[in-house]
C-alpha cells in the first residue's frame, strides 16, 4: 500500500512541476504608445462645479481653502504640487500672475507681448486657455506649468509646481488634465 501511495505522490509531483521559464528577455524599438490610457485615467468630480479626468497616480491633498482641488503629483524623482483655483473676475490679471510665478522661481518679469508669445493654446468644454511653462535653468529644482482659463465672471488657474525634469515628465498629463475639465453635469 505504501508503494502505491509513493507512486501516486510521484505522479502528482511530476505533473505539478512547473518547468516554464518565468523570465523573458526581448528587445523592442523605442516607441511610446498611447494604449495604456485605459488604466491610467479615472474620472474625478471633486468640486461642486467642475469635473475632470486625472491619472490615478495623482493623489488628492490638503491645500488652502482657496483651492478647488489639490493633488500630489508623483514623477520619477520626486513630487509635484498641482492646484486648481477659481478667482472672481480676471483674478488679478494674466500678466500680473505670470510675472508673480516667474518671480517665485527667480525669473525676471516680462512684458505682456513677450509673455503671450510664450503661451501655448488649448481648449476644453469651458473655453480656450493659455498654458505657460516657466523654468529657470540656474535653479532646476523648481519650475511651474500653469494654465489660465477665462470664463464669464471668473478665471480658472491650474498650476503645477515641480522640478524642471518633473515638469517635462508631467507635461502631457497636465495638458490632458486641463483639456478634460468641464462643468459637472451631475448637478
Amino acid at each position, binding site marked *: *500500500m505504501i*508503494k*502505491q501511495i509513493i*507512486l*501516486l505522490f510521484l*505522479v*502528482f509531483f511530476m*505533473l*505539478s512541476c*512547473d518547468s*516554464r521559464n*518565468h*523570465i*523573458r*528577455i*526581448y*528587445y*523592442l*524599438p*523605442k516607441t511610446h*504608445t*498611447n*494604449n*495604456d*490610457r*485605459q*488604466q*491610467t*485615467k479615472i474620472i474625478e468630480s471633486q468640486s461642486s462645479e467642475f469635473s475632470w*479626468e486625472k*491619472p*490615478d*497616480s495623482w*493623489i488628492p*491633498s490638503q491645500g488652502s481653502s482657496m483651492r478647488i482641488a489639490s493633488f*500630489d503629483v*508623483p*514623477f*520619477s*524623482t*520626486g*513630487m509635484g504640487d498641482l492646484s486648481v483655483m477659481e478667482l472672481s473676475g480676471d483674478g488679478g490679471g494674466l500678466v500680473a500672475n505670470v510675472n508673480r510665478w516667474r518671480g517665485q522661481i527667480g525669473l525676471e518679469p516680462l512684458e505682456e507681448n513677450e509673455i503671450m508669445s510664450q503661451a501655448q493654446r488649448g481648449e*476644453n468644454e469651458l473655453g480656450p486657455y493659455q498654458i505657460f511653462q516657466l523654468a529657470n535653468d540656474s535653479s532646476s529644482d523648481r519650475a511651474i506649468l500653469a494654465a489660465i482659463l477665462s470664463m464669464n465672471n471668473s478665471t480658472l488657474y491650474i498650476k503645477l509646481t515641480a522640478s524642471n525634469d518633473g515638469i517635462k*515628465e*508631467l507635461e502631457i*498629463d497636465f495638458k*490632458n488634465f486641463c*483639456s*478634460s475639465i468641464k462643468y459637472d453635469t451631475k448637478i
Partner: protein
Amino acid sequence: MKQIIKTISHPKIFVYTVIWLMVLTVLGTIAQRDIGLYASQQKYFSSYITWLGDIIPTPGGKFTMIIILVNLMSMLFKHNIWKLRKAGIIIVHLGAVLLFIGSGVTAIFSSEGNMVIDEGAESNYVDDYHKMELAVVNTSKKNLDKYTVFDEPLLKKSNKLSHESLDFVIEIIEYYNNCKVQRRTKSSDIQYKGMMKNFDLIKLKPEKENAQNRSGIIYKIENSDSNNDGIYGLILGQSVIQTATINKQNFEFLFRKKRTYLPFSIELLDFKKVLHPGTGIAKSYSSEINLIENGIPRRVLIQMNEPLRHRGYTFFQSSFIEAPEGEATVLAAVKNYGRLFPYISSIIMAVGLLVHLVINLPRLLRKQMVGNK
C-alpha cells in the same frame, strides 16, 4: 506492477474523486458570491490543495483531476480490458482521457487578455486579464530597449530576482493583490527611493471583481554599486515611470499586466457604436481594422458574435473607451490550444457508448429471450 495498476485503476477511486469534484463545484459556486469568480476559480479549481476554512487541507480541483486522469489511464493498462467485447469501454475511456488532457493543455498553455487600440493607432500586444509582470527596461541604447521581464510567480515576498542581463539584484519586499497609495505622514530612516520617498502602499482586502484590484509591489534594489540601492514601490496603473541609473545604464521599472507580443499587429481604422434609440445603451458596436502581417494589411470587420480568428488567437469585440481625445476599441484576445479537445473527446465518448451498445445488444437480447422462455 500488476498490483499497482490494479490499485490505481480501481473504479472506486473514480467514483470518489468525481463526487469530490462535484463537492468542489458546489463550494466554488457558493464562494463566488463572497470572493468573486476569479478568486473562487483559483481557490477551488486551479489549485492542488484547497484549504477549507483556511484550516483543513483538501485536494484541490487540479489534484483531483490529475487523480482521475491517472485512474482512467491506468485502466487501459489492465490486461483483461483489451477484448473485443470491451472495445466500447476502451473508446469511452480514451475519450475521457483526451478530455482531461485537453483541460490540462488549456490550463497550462491558454491565455486571455485584452487589446486596447485607439482609433488610427496600431497595437501588437495583449495584456493579460489577471496575471502581472515586473519589466525592467534598459533604455540606454539608442534605438532598442532591452526588456527583462519577471512573471508573477516570481514576484513572491522575499524572492530575489536576478538575471545575467542585470547588474543588480531585486528583492521582493511585499506583493499586494490589492492596495492603495497613501502619503507618508512621518519621515523614515529607511532608504526609500522614487515614489516611496513620499508615499507608501497600503494593503487592501481584494475586491470581488479581480479587474477592480490594483496590485502593488515593494522591492529592494541591491548590489547596484551606486546610490540607487534602496526600496522602491510600484502600483498597477502608475502613470509615472520609475527610473534609475545604475552603472551608467538607464533603467525603467514597469509593473503591469502580463504582456504578450503578437507576430502581427492590428490597426483600428474606425470604431462604430450604435445606441438603442433614446438611450445611452449600446445596441451594437464594431471595429474596422487592418490586420497587418509582414507589412501586408488585410481589412477585417470585427463585431459582436463575429470575431477575428488568426494564428490561434480569437479577437472578440469586447468593449470600447470614449475619451476627449477620441475613441478606442477593446478587443478580448483569447488563445486556447485546447479548444477542440472537448468536441473531439465528446464525439469519441459517444462513439464508444454506441460501440458498447452494438457489441452487447445481441447478448442482452439473448438474455431477455431466455428470461422470457
